[in-house]
């Protein structure tokens, strides 16, 4: 992201200079910081509220239930036979589905470490790692709380109208990603065995 910020500033100031508008820079900055103040304040309380609700879900065992439901499916998708790894994978994925970012990352990193331990590394990612990464870069969210909140803040008539489309899009996206992964991996295998 550092590169992107530099890119924005360099081209921004260059264009201000071209348009003889360099005097505007301070105005732009003060308007932006004021906008930031109100945005962060709203976001702060919104996120805190939803994190609170999600925490209730966690404490009554919803994450555990979800990961129990998911583990038979995941055992078919991932080739690893290590139960500990599979368990971490399913905890990570169910936390992601419920939108608990701070619970998902630790279990995700732990699962990656386990997957890394299982093979003699040659510097290339294993098929299981690729699949697991796709589970984490495609997002299947049961209730996308942040987006719903941002929509409500922007004055939507029905902020949660996107819930089902998001679910369908995320699920189909993940299916496509996993099939693409399978296709690419089998192509690679065939090429190396020739």
């Amino acid at each position, binding site marked *: 992201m550092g590169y992107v910020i530099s890119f924005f500033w360099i081209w921004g100031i*260059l264009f201000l200079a071209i348009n003889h508008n360099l005097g505007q820079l301070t105005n732009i900055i003060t308007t932006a910081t004021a906008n930031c103040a109100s945005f962060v304040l709203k976001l702060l309380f919104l996120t805190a509220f939803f*994190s609170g609700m999600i925490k209730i*879900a966690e404490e009554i065992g919803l994450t555990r239930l979800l990961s129990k439901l998911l583990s038979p499916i995941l055992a078919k998708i991932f080739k690893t036979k290590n139960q500990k790894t599979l368990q971490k994978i399913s905890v990570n994925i169910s936390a992601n589905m419920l939108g608990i970012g701070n619970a998902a990352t630790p279990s995700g*990193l732990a699962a990656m470490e386990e997957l890394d331990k299982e093979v003699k590394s040659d510097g290339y990612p294993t098929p299981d790692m690729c699949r697991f990464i796709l589970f984490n*870069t495609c997002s299947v969210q049961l209730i996308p709380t942040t987006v*719903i909140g941002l929509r409500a803040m922007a004055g939507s008539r029905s902020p949660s109208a996107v819930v089902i489309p998001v679910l369908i899009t995320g699920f189909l996206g993940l299916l496509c990603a996993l099939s693409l992964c399978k296709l690419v991996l089998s192509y690679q295998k065939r090429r190396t065995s020739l």
Partner: protein
Amino acid sequence: MISALSNGMLPLFFLSLFVISFLKKRDSLSAFTKGAKEGFSAIVKITPNILAIMVSIAVFRESGALTFFLKLISPLFQFLKIPEGIGELILVRPISGSGAMVLLTDILEKFGADSYEGLLASVICASTETTIYTITVYFAVTRVKKTKLPLLLGLCADMIVIFLAMLTVNLFLCSA
């Protein structure tokens, strides 16, 4: 039908939370405050990032640089039938979650939260992740050095999701 189902999910979720915690005799208030505390600190932690992103985007946009660059890539977007208004969001989404949040809010305010652009941006934001960031962080704990394949797969998947989002938004949200 779909929108009724969509709108019912959140209330139903909240209702079941409180019914179950009541039946299980759990203290829902202490759970809530614990989670809210985590939520506060999570946002406070990324506030510097949000500030940096919001100011730099403002400079980039107000200077006229954004219009210039969007004009450069607009033929590609037109060819792919992606509305130009969400171009910036698509480019930033894989790199930065807070950046995407800022841009989504901009789109929702500019086009309206219930416009085609607003709905599409919402669906895309919710069904993708910070792909490049995630891959960097996750592979950092392993011995894997060659991350080109997962990176390509992840970004391809993001592209697929954008088209799927256009499909679902057209089908479920904009047809009525």
